[in-house]
């Protein structure tokens, strides 16, 4: 590993974060662009959420007897009704532990 590689990677990462904040001026975006951008969390987070849940460590689809899918469904139900971030995270984690430790999923 070289420090130069780390610094290049750091610069690239910083540019991804800084570019739009630096370039876009206030009110440059019209209402329609703002509307589309309001979907950014919904467009990005599932791409982080889905693969580790549905794919096994070898990267193939794992749908049968997958405790993470069941725990995620439970967390979605809790999240839907409670609208509470902490309740959603812990209901998913605790139901996952119950499934793997008590029911040996």
């Amino acid at each position: 590993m070289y420090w130069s590689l780390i610094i290049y990677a750091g610069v690239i990462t910083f540019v991804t974060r800084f570019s739009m904040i630096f370039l876009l001026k206030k009110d440059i975006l019209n209402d329609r662009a703002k509307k589309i951008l309001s979907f950014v969390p919904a467009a990005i987070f599932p791409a982080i959420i889905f693969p580790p849940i549905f794919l096994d460590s070898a990267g193939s689809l794992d749908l049968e007897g997958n405790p993470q899918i069941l725990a995620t469904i439970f967390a979605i139900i809790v999240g839907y009704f409670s609208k509470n971030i902490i309740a959603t995270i812990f209901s998913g984690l605790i139901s996952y532990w119950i499934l793997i430790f008590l029911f040996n999923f």
Partner: protein
Amino acid sequence: MNNKLKTLVKGIIDVSPLMIPVIPFGIIYGVIGMDLGIGPYMTLGLSIIIFGGASQIVLLQLFSGGASSLVILSSVGAVNARHVLYGAVLSEHLSTLKLSWKIILSYVMTDQAFAVSNNYFKKNNKDKNYHYHLLGSGFTCWSIWQISTILGIVLGSVVPEELGLSFTISLTFLALLISDFRKFKNIIIMLVSGIVATIGYNTIPFKAYIIVAALSALIVAVLLTLTDSKKR
């Protein structure tokens, strides 16, 4: 408590529950760095200079696999490309700040800090010191990431793998979307993003599946809102 400090503390509090998986993730990262033999200084150096968990692990994996610098840097760029969209969303609120503020806030902008501070900005547009919220949430992420990296370097794998704490990464991002569950369009967009990412995980090069999935979902968002305006 003055208003700036209040907003800063609010940012720290809002992001705190999302730090639960960051700690084991940072420890895992520290352990991987040591296992690959790059030493404690470079392992921590990556966390400070890049400050992006997934991209750091991708960088280490590719480096240990003997990938060329060009492939490594392209992959880091692809994994972090989602920040460009976060920046576009936040620019509306941050564009009037001084350059020094923009630089500092860009450096600490992570998924979690973006999510909670973007919500705060939308709800509190009268707060003059709103940017202190992102400062608080961002530096909380930063501190937790550095501390957990050091824990991984010093202690090794102290978190038992059986606890499945990597699953909490998915759960925290899921928790960030709870307000979207009630909106039909958002559900469609979420499904498109998730399905494209799952299919693309192994097939899209340079680990670019996240940004490809996000752009696919945004194209669907454009189409869905197109019919919106026609109805009006």
